[in-house]
């Protein structure tokens, strides 16, 4: 079991005071705070080993290249990929999905082909497909979400018939629901469809094994994984690579260039044009080392405990409505909720006065909010350093907000 109170010392930002109160950071699902080890590793790289990755013959360039490629190894091992060649570095999960839509979708989908999405997707896993569908005349199908906040698998199977591609989130960023990805990929492959899985919310919370999930593409962002911004991961493999055209093109993704003709480098280099965010990749690898030391099973166990405590604490407050499953084991460490009579933005502003940082709004999942029947929700999300004291402060602050909104005002 983790000791979150002890881990707090690893995150320098937690010494910040907000409105003269200690910071209670409950927005890790939007972006995670950074451990010192990661910050120091990036600084160390720039100060001591920085040079042009994959381009120079001199010592610094070779050191930088070695560290960048070692980061790729670390990522591959972390998610149980077969080899580091399966790892493409991108800017973030959003760019990785756009890469697949552009490089595979554009050259493999034809007019009338169907893509199955779900009602619980983040805009990042919707808009690239909306744009592609408009361009190519594709059919978009949306698998339903049940009232309990799960993916309706009966509906999914119905919509899967004849589809060429399934794009599904591993974990809902609003409901916290963990989708049965291994089952989804099995069904999709039997039906002849390829599968892209958005792992942005799963990677920081769950032990991952690519061999077990068998998705054709798995994507996630580094910044939600305690790593820096500007680095993301696309995992795919050889048979799928063959059907993918280049996305961004330019330097270092080529084999040979003449005047008007080009042959491309072997993947993953094909998909890494231009100077890549090497310090960020190295920072991500150090953040992964940090998580590996804690153990992803312990991370999961800790977040389960905090989620269970939060579900219990929040549902005990009158007027608080929680969205999604009421069972912690169905979820990762995030809870979306509304408070009767208080707009989520007002709630977030009031909580901020107490140093409590939560997300409010539609969390880039407007279709799901339309389904839930609310324009916006508040969301508290947890991390390795979240303690039950943090949840207590959240609950106290919600009650104080309720008091502010229920007190009669002097006319």
């Amino acid at each position, binding site marked *: 079991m983790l000791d979150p109170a002890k881990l707090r010392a690893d995150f320098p930002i937690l010494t910040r005071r907000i409105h003269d109160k200690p910071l209670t950071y409950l927005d890790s699902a939007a972006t995670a705070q950074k451990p010192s080890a990661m910050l120091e590793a990036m600084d160390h790289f720039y100060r001591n080993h920085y040079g042009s990755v994959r381009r120079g013959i001199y010592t610094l360039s070779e050191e930088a290249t070695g560290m960048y490629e070692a980061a790729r190894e670390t990522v591959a091992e972390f998610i149980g990929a077969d080899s580091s060649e399966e790892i493409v570095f991108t800017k973030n999960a959003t760019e990785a999905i756009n890469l697949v839509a552009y490089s595979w979708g554009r050259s493999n989908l034809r007019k009338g082909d169907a893509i199955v999405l779900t009602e619980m997707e983040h805009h990042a896993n919707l808009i690239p497909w909306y744009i592609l569908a408009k361009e190519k005349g594709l059919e978009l199908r949306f698998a339903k979400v049940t009232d309990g906040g799960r993916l309706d698998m009966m509906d999914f199977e119905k919509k899967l018939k004849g589809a060429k591609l399934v794009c599904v989130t591993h974990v809902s960023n609003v409901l916290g629901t963990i989708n049965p990805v291994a089952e989804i990929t099995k069904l999709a492959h039997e039906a002849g469809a390829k599968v892209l899985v958005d792992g942005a919310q799963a990677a920081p919370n769950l032990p991952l094994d690519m061999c077990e999930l068998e998705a054709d593409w798995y994507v996630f962002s580094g910044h939600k994984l305690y790593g820096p911004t500007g680095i993301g991961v696309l995992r795919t493999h050889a048979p799928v690579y063959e059907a993918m055209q280049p996305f961004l093109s330019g330097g270092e993704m080529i084999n040979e260039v003449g005047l008007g003709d080009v042959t491309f480098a072997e993947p993953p280099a094909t998909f890494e044009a231009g100077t890549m965010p090497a310090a960020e990749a190295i920072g991500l690898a150090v953040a992964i080392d940090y998580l590996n030391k804690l153990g992803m099973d312990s991370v999961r166990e800790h977040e389960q405990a905090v989620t269970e405590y939060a579900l219990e604490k929040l549902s005990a407050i009158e007027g608080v409505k929680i969205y999604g499953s009421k069972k912690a084991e169905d979820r990762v460490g995030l809870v979306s909720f509304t408070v009767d009579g208080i*707009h989520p*933005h007002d709630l977030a502003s009031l909580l901020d006065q107490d140093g409590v940082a939560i997300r409010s*709004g*539609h969390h880039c999942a407007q279709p799901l909010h339309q389904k839930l029947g609310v324009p916006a929700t508040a969301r508290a999300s947890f991390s390795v350093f979240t303690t039950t004291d943090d949840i207590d402060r959240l609950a106290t602050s919600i009650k104080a907000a309720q008091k*502010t909104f229920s007190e009669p005002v*002097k006319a």
Partner: protein
Amino acid sequence: MNLYREHIMDHYKNPRNRGTLPNADMTIEESNPVCGDKLKLMYKLDGDRVNEVKFEGEGCAISLAAASMLTEMIEGKTLEELKAIRDEDMLKQIGVPLSPTRVKCGLLALSGLRKGLKQDNLAGYGNS
């Protein structure tokens, strides 16, 4: 600094001029899809002066309180005076410093009024 001071909570809980105005000379809807705020602003003119003004809508306390304040600000004013209302005037009425993300809520009603005034101009040109 408490954002939800009595002044704001008073306008939020006891909104001025809330309701509808049948046969209004100007009706405009304004929304912020990001937070789901929706406002409808209506007024009747007596000559070029606002004779009666109403608003209705749903949203956060800041946007609704600001809408209530704006109706008080424009009652009895001429169209020229309405056009001259600046962001700073609205924010001054609200009276508490808003963070950059909340300024949008505070200015939603005024943004609606500006749209309405443009619409009004067009109608005027059409009639002449």
